[in-house]
């Protein structure tokens, strides 16, 4: 019987191992977790969002929200006004800082089946129906009008209000809120998520978790942390990060107050400037 050549056998085994390691490395490098995010149980119920606007543009901003979008103005004072977006309120206050035009990002929830109608509605001029397209923010990488986010299981359309804010109309697939009919601002459900800009995301996350009990969503980065669940979210964004879907607009901690539902009265000021969360029962 021919005896086995040990040297050759050794060579063969080492070569096969090398190939196996290369193949495994290739598979591991290809594999990344693209499953939709799993959200914690506790949602952020946004009662009101108070943001700043350029005082010189106040009239136009109000007119935009009232006449073009079609939201009701529920409260108006000498230097502020409040509009109703579904179950939430959006208040504009005059800008007290030296920054001329603050820019915010927040999302409004719409029925999950209405995203295409919503885009058509925006392109047709909203409530005015005059065919003048409301300025849309398109997907930076692809230039798409409707941006699919399988990670969040949602589809979004972004538009700019008169103040240049990035307003997202989001249809979340895992929320059962299908509505049939012609799309209008009456289908706005609530303010669903708000981007809060801070210097230190980790510290802000800890503060919110301790005081309000919201849990962060796993697999969100340290520069962009999401807290809450699909029914209500807070996006903690590190300063100077590019705000999606744009490729140019940087996040900046403009003055902002977010009022969330909570039985106890708590004020949480995020590290940095004038960004805070207050509560209302």
């Amino acid at each position, binding site marked *: 019987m021919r005896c086995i050549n040990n040297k050759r056998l050794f060579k063969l085994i080492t070569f096969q191992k090398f190939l196996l390691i290369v193949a495994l490395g290739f598979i591991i490098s290809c594999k990344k977790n693209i*499953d*939709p995010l799993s959200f914690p149980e506790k949602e952020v119920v946004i009662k009101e969002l108070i943001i700043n606007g350029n005082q010189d543009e106040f009239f136009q901003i109000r007119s935009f929200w009232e006449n073009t979008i079609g939201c009701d103005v529920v409260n108006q004072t000498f230097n502020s006004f409040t509009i109703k977006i579904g179950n939430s309120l959006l208040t504009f206050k005059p800008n007290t800082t030296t920054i001329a035009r603050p820019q915010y990002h927040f999302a409004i929830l719409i029925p*999950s089946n209405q995203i295409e109608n919503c885009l058509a509605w925006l*392109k047709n001029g909203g409530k005015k129906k005059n065919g003048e397209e409301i300025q849309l923010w398109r997907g930076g990488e692809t230039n798409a*009008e409707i*941006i699919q986010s399988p990670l969040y*299981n949602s*589809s979004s359309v972004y538009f700019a209000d008169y103040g240049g804010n990035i307003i997202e109309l989001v249809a979340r697939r895992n929320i059962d809120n299908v509505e049939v009919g012609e799309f209008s601002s009456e289908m706005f459900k609530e303010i669903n998520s708000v981007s809060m800009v801070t210097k230190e995301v980790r510290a802000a996350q800890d503060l919110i978790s301790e005081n309000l009990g919201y849990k962060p969503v796993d697999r969100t980065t340290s520069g962009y942390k999401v807290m809450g669940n699909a029914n209500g979210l807070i996006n903690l964004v590190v300063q100077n990060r590019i705000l999606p879907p744009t490729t140019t607009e940087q996040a900046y901690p403009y003055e902002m107050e977010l009022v969330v539902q909570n039985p106890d009265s708590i004020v949480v000021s995020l590290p940095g400037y004038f960004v805070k969360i207050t509560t209302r029962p």
Partner: protein
Amino acid sequence: MRKLLLLLLISLPIISFAQQPARNIVSPDTVKPKRSDSLLVDTTDYWKDTLNPIKDNKIWRDGEVVKPVKPRPKKKKFQIRFSDRIEYAFMLDYPLTTGAGVETSLLFQKKIGAWSDSLLPPYFGGDSTQAQRRRARIYRAAKIFLIDAPLESIIMATQQDFFGHMARMREFELKSKYTFRPINLISFWKPVGYISFDPLKIETEASRQQLGQIASASLEAGGIASDLLAMRWMQRKAVFYHEALHNLRLQLSGLSEVLTVSKNPQTGKSSAEDWMYYTNRQYGFYSEYGYTAGNMKRDYAIATFTNPNLYTSLYSVFYNYLINGSDSMRTPAFKIGYGKYVLPWVKYSFTPLGPEWVPEITLTRHRHVLNVYGRIGTGVFAQSYGGGIRLNNFLRNDFVSLNAHVAFWNQPYLFKNWVNQEILTIGTGGAATVTGYFKLTKGWHFPISAVAQLGYKTKGFMEGEVWQAAPIIRVGLSFALDKDFEEDYNYPQYEEIKTKKELKKEASEAKKKAKAKAPTKTQPRQNPYVK
């Protein structure tokens, strides 16, 4: 399904009858190789000394010892075995997929072509005079445009509508009613496969991506058929007229479909336009398309006009058949050795994740085929890539021949539903299948095999397969319909070929043996005849 099986059983004797070619099939395998390996040596110049310790050495008359001339390595003569014949399979799976359907449609295409040729052979009344040849060309032109091209249109419509659109509709379990476009028999360049449905109803039942997939299923079926034919041509190394006509019909249909897409694509016009409309919408492009009609026309034209199989088909139909009256020709491919050929081409694939380039290279060694392909997504909608290897006839004997296919891919998501917006997360996936053709009869006229294709695929888009992870189980009957092997086995048998390494090894072993046998001290022997 039962009716189909019954129909198959009844028509089995008719289907399984091998085709008698009009003339000898032109293929390097079917040409008897010339014997030019014999070594002619003039024995008058030398004599062999029986006492010489090394037997093969020759000693010239002047006493000089000459080492034997090394014989040239023998060329391998290839004989087409019974098991090497190309199999035309009737395959069934549940639910009936495009992959199995196209394979089956090509069986019927082959059979219908053979019947057409037996009823109306490519030449009549001789072709020895110029006048006879002229008449025959007119007759063949009439046959192509009035009989064969309409027949191909009908076959293609079945292939694209029944096994393309309908297979995908069944897969996605859609309930909306649909209609097919009637087949235009005269305009042989126009597309045939098209499914039309009420967009208002169907858009609520499926995601935009699924609708795009249903729309492009005809082009997908065409791509699979085109690839299958090209691989058969490489395996057989001969192109048949009917196959060439079928491939030409597929290419023309695809080209005319894509090149007529309007600048602002809308649904309800053609498959390519529907695919473009729905895929753009799935990925959020409404007023301006991310992938425009111009981009698609450019890419598709590049892929089609650089494909050598298009020119092979044109040459085969219009020169080889129409002018020369021959129904087979050698496959043009790059020769890289004895019986070894290689041919690359690029395919354009309409996937639900956006357009993909599929560069392919096919290598053949006699009748073993290796096809390696890559899938490179253009990334206009979603980032995707993949590739695969197909091995045809990699193992064969008198009882079985085996094919194998291994594929992998990396894709992000597939959208399963629009209203609920269900998604299918994919990531890295793959598929592996083995197809076995088990010979049932060894008859020359009725070469029937049982075919079984077994494998598994993970979730993700793969041409001709379902989106979900599923086992691939296909069974059926297969018929080796080409009469391209010798019945009486008069062709030269396989001759044992020795590689250079083996020859060297043999030579060194012989030397060693000779040395061992030879006496340690040998006196140079005097030749008594030389003074």
